[in-house]
């Protein structure tokens, strides 16, 4: 992309002036190679997150070139509420109690890059109020898994011994999280296996009910700064389309009472955002209690840039504001 020499800025608010004259994007490298390129000054930024085995290296030797930014996003594990064993509420809650969020955070890169969570709305998001029932001491925050309670719930559900396949993208972190979940499911008495699939289809494959995905590892990042972007889009009845690759409600969750409340909140939000956010907080708790997913953590975003990049600016909506940076 090159700067248009004939463009005249008519409003700083509408179109703030950028600094760079040209932006070149190149494709085809692995994430490992991209990190090496930036270290060598052959590239200025990488779209992918740095691989986990390079985090310590860039965090120590290239710390001044690393920018860690809060994200309104979450890593979660949708459980298909229409297929056994997760069509059983107790089975879903059992997994929510059993998962050690700290373990998954460790796979992701450590506590400086992620915060454990139990609920849908990320911290700092409109409507968010700290809530975590799935921990040893239920309350506002997650502290530790409760394996004993989880096992009791599995026993009560009568689903022990069933086969479960955990689907995930085949990149290192997603697959490692899936293998960890397999270990937890086996501990709970299920017969779990992992099915890694290409990252190219890891978002569409679990959405289509024809593929009969019981549980998979996913991430969701804000599209716009409103609670409905998480709660209604991911868990609303209208987001569930059986047999479609576009059924973003991967859990197939459709609770009429909660859905009605979502519709109400959407209406209220048009005129009274504060009241709507209070409603979304309630809805967040209601959805969390129904456990159509296991929320793992809220991640942070790591941007690794070259030495010559200055004025790095991050937006939770648009991420790195490329045009606002300069290179020297």
């Amino acid at each position, binding site marked *: 992309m090159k700067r248009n020499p004939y463009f005249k800025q008519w409003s700083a608010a509408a179109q703030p002036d950028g600094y760079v004259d040209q932006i070149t994007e190149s494709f085809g490298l692995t994430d490992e190679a991209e990190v090496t390129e930036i270290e060598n000054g052959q590239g200025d930024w990488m779209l992918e997150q740095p*691989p*986990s*085995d*390079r*985090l*310590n*290296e*860039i*965090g*120590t*030797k290239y*710390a001044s070139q*690393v920018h*860690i930014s809060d994200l309104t996003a979450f890593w979660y594990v949708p459980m298909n509420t229409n297929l056994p064993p997760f069509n059983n509420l107790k089975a879903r809650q059992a997994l929510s109690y059993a998962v*050690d969020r*700290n*373990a998954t955070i*460790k*796979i992701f*890169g*450590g*506590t*400086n*890059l992620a915060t454990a969570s139990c609920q849908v709305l990320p911290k700092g998001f409109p409507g968010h109020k700290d809530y975590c029932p799935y921990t040893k001491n239920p309350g506002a925050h997650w502290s530790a898994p409760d394996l004993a309670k989880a096992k009791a719930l599995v026993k009560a559900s009568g689903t022990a011994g069933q086969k479960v396949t955990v689907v995930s993208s*085949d990149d*290192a972190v997603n697959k*490692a999280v899936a*293998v*960890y979940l*397999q*270990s*937890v499911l*086996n*501990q709970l008495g299920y017969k779990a*296996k*992992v*099915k*890694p699939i290409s990252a190219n289809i890891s978002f569409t494959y679990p959405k289509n009910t024809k593929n009969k995905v019981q549980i998979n590892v996913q991430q969701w990042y804000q599209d716009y700064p409103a609670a409905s972007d998480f709660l209604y889009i991911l868990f609303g009845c209208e987001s569930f389309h059986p047999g479609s690759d576009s059924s973003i409600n991967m859990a197939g969750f459709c609770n009429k009472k909660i859905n009605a409340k979502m519709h109400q909140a959407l209406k209220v939000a048009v005129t009274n955002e504060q009241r709507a956010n209070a409603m979304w907080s309630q809805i967040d708790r209601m959805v969390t209690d129904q456990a159509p997913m296991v929320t793992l953590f809220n991640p942070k975003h*790591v941007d690794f840039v070259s030495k010559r990049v200055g004025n790095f600016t991050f937006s939770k909506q648009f991420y790195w504001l490329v045009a606002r940076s300069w290179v020297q």
Partner: protein
Amino acid sequence: MTEAAASAPALVGALPSEASPWGLARRRLLRNRLALFMLGVFVAIVLLSLAAPIYAHDVAHTDPFRSHLDGTTVVNGKRVLVIPQSTGGLGIGATPIGPTWDLHHYFLGADNQGRDVAARLLYGGRNSLLIGFFAALITCLAGTLIGVVAGFFGGITDGVISRVLEIVWAFPVYLFAICLSVILVNQDFVFGPVRVGSGSIALPIMIIGIVYIPYVARPVRGEVLSLRRREFVEAAIGLGASRTRLLRKDVLPNVATTVIVLFPLVMAIAMLTEAALSFLSIGVQPPDASWGTIIQDGKDLIRTRPAVALAPGLAIALTVLALNVLGDGIRDALDPRAKVRGVR
């Protein structure tokens, strides 16, 4: 009796047992020190792999199939996290501990799930050797049967079988194995009353065993075609020997030496194929271990913890080398052109 006759060596009657073909082969093999050494190496690898449960349970006190992301161990008398978080710089990243060289505590370090690499290496050896052995067995048995039938009966039978073998041979082996694995690894394999679970190691055994059949069937077929024209076979036919007798007494014993030589070589190739399929996540399925899956686990730790990938890689290399040298030694021992020595 003439003087010449009196001094002629007594060659009539049964040869001493040491001079029988199998006895001679055994003696030649025992004289091949390199082959014997490699046999010892192979046996040691097998025994170590068989000892995996003992090592994991009684020595390392670990469950190599369960994630231990928040686990701890003892290094130099201090209790440490198996996967400690980085404390330097920005404090990002968490790297598993490296080799401690302490048999009781993560001898070769941990993988990205906090599992003991040494214990998984031994368990992985069990699966890799098991798959290699049984896949080679399937290949050699099926290949022998097909090759003997094709070569012995000839005609249309040979024509049809040879064309099928050529079609299978035309596919690159790894591509063929990958195609079969991708289809079968996600669903149970059902063939009549037989049902093989999708996570079962019987699947890679079956797939690898099938794709290498032409590699045994064709040389066996060639051997049988050659045997059919030998004088002792023609003589047996002339004397009215049945097909069963011919196969049992003349063909199979002669073909057996070829198959015996091929077996360790096929086993080595089968183990390499299994490692490749498991590396691609379509062979042995997690949490089960094989040398290929451990290399896959170590792929993302190659910069920080290379031992995770190097250890199974070296294990594969050593085992394949041992099998190849052993195979060469067996081939040299069974060489029919070697002369009988020291008959008195």
